[in-house]
């Protein structure tokens, strides 16, 4: 891992490198951390995110599995209960459909059902995001399902810095944590200090300060929101971009305070708009900032259609800088 040698504080690495560093550091720190998934070893995943880990940690800790998402996730639950800290790799977020019983009926509940006697400290890393021309079964952002389930924690990092710090925290957490990575973000570069650090769960991050409107954005939508904010600035609208970073636990207060300050809010998330993350956050803000809002909270998520393959159609299904810019401008009465 050549990026390890860069040690100045200005170090920039990609999102994928940040993930890999987090994994490598935690695996060095704790021998019970191991990785299970399809093509994670020699191949280092199709996204090459894990490249080099096999070489450093060996086959006992980086394990290729059959295409058995339910089976190896279930195995991870049992391993977590008995002294290991497994990390399972679910290649595409669309395949979490196969793991719901293991995650929801087993991992999420075992601590509570056993009266606190057993715990399942495991991490599921998976992906979200469309616009890769991968069609309906490889493009979904289904994180809202896990957010709905008590006993799980859900993280959606939007920068290399957040990804590294939050993943390290997730691995050290004593609960099952699901970590969603935007497939389109793996090559995004950003500042990541060389020194060891972790980031707390449940603390939102204001990615950009502003006065006129709040853009709450998750994962892939953070860059979109920042792009829209830059466009808005040009027409004199100051947008604040707030990234909750973890959807459970959720830093309600920061989101609400921002909306109270700006009096307007748009909530952006790449999951389906209906019955999804935008609904939860919008309703929290609508209630929490009730007396301060100048306009209804607007929600922007994926269109209520299976993601189409055809490029011009696919591009219409998710919010873009342009559509966010226009919605915000309209909301601000311009």
């Amino acid at each position, binding site marked *: 891992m050549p990026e390890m040698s860069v040690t100045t504080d200005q170090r920039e690495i990609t999102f994928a490198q940040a993930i890999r560093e987090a994994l490598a550091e935690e695996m060095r720190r704790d021998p*019970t951390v*191991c990785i299970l998934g399809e093509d994670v070893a020699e191949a280092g995943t199709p996204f090459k995110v894990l490249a080099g880990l096999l070489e450093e940690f060996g086959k*006992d800790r980086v*394990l290729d*599995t*059959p295409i*058995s998402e*339910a*089976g*190896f*996730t*279930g*195995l*991870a*639950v*049992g*391993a*977590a*209960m*008995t*002294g*290991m800290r*497994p990390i399972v790799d679910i290649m595409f977020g669309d395949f979490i459909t196969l793991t719901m*019983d*293991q995650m929801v*009926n*087993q991992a999420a509940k*075992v*601590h*509570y*059902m*056993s*009266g*606190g*006697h*057993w*715990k399942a*400290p495991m991490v599921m890393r998976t992906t979200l995001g469309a616009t890769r021309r991968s069609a309906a079964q490889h493009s979904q952002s289904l994180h809202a399902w896990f957010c709905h389930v*008590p*006993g799980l*924690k859900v993280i959606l990092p939007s920068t290399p810095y957040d990804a590294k710090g939050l993943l390290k925290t997730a691995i050290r957490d*004593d*609960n099952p944590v699901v970590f969603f990575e935007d497939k389109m973000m793996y090559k995004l570069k950003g500042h990541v200090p060389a020194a060891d650090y972790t980031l707390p769960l449940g603390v939102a991050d204001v990615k950009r300060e502003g006065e006129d409107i709040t853009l709450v954005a998750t994962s892939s939508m953070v860059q979109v929101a920042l792009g829209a904010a830059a466009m808005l600035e040009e027409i004199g609208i100051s947008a604040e971009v707030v990234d909750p970073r973890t959807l459970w636990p959720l830093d309600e207060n920061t989101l609400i305070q921002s909306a109270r300050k700006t009096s307007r809010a748009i909530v952006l998330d790449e999951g389906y708009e209906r019955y999804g993350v935008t609904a939860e956050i919008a309703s929290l803000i609508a209630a929490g900032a009730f007396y301060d809002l100048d306009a209804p909270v607007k929600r922007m998520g994926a269109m209520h259609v299976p993601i189409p393959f055809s490029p011009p159609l696919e591009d219409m299904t998710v919010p873009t800088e342009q559509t966010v810019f226009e919605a915000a401008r309209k909301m601000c009465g311009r």
Partner: protein
Amino acid sequence: MTSLAPTPQVIEKAELWLRMYRQMLAIRFFENQVNELYTRALMPGLAHLYIGEEAVAVGVCETLERTDYITSTHRGHGHCLAKGASPDLMFAELLGKKAGYCKGKGGSMHIADPATGNLGANAIVCGSAGIATGAAFSAKRLANGRVSVCFIGEGALGQGVLYEVMNLAELFKLPVIYVCENNLYSEYTHFSETTAGDILARATAFGLHAASVDGQNVRAVYEHAQILVERARRGAGPGFLLCNTYRYHGHHVGDINREYYRSRREEQTWKTERDPIANFAKWLIEQKVATVKELDELSARVETEMKKAVEFAMATPYPSPDEVAEDVYA
């Protein structure tokens, strides 16, 4: 009356046999109490009785160390007791009391006990197959010499995840044994209506070492389990033990009229001719391991113990309201 002395092998194992007999009695009396609690409307919800199947749990668990792992099913009281749990804390759990194994939060279908390696009963059919396999994964990685036993009903053969984890267990050579209790029915349906092909072949196809045994004969179960446990413990990989058995009662305590799915005659035959406890008692007496009187006394002691356990559970309090939100996160 013949008065031959017991054989050396029997003497050597007399203590073991008696302990196993005691455990089987414990399960039966425990379950009788559960049934009574239900009938008297003192138990919340339902429970699935293990009566008739005692030889399986006891035969298997007696081959295990306390630190070895088991996972169990909705029909889990027998496994739990056989692995060493205390009846009083179990009853407390069944009644939803704070003193219960899971502080009352789990109930009958979720009893778990780290002290005896019980990773938990599970109300999802086959829901614990992944967990048991994972415990074996830990045992291998942490090199602590433990094995893991996954109890499942034959209904669990319908769940695809079983084949996924058997494949993983064999690939990773994990010390796990899947113990399939074929009691002929899953709920109200005969297994032949839901199970094509051959059960043992389903395990051997994935490379597992598989065996079938009379689940009403506790010594046979014990011996077969021992072979698989020993293999697993020395790193030779996973096993599969098919135990042919029968549940005397309904699918759950409320399943009273059963004629539409199985005959009274069938039930009667199993109860009178193949009862694991009665037949074992007969053998113990024949082998001079114990006298009728001794066994009767043991029986009375165990029954009293169970009654006391129920009394304890009845008297102990419910959790307090603020506990509802505790233990969601570790």
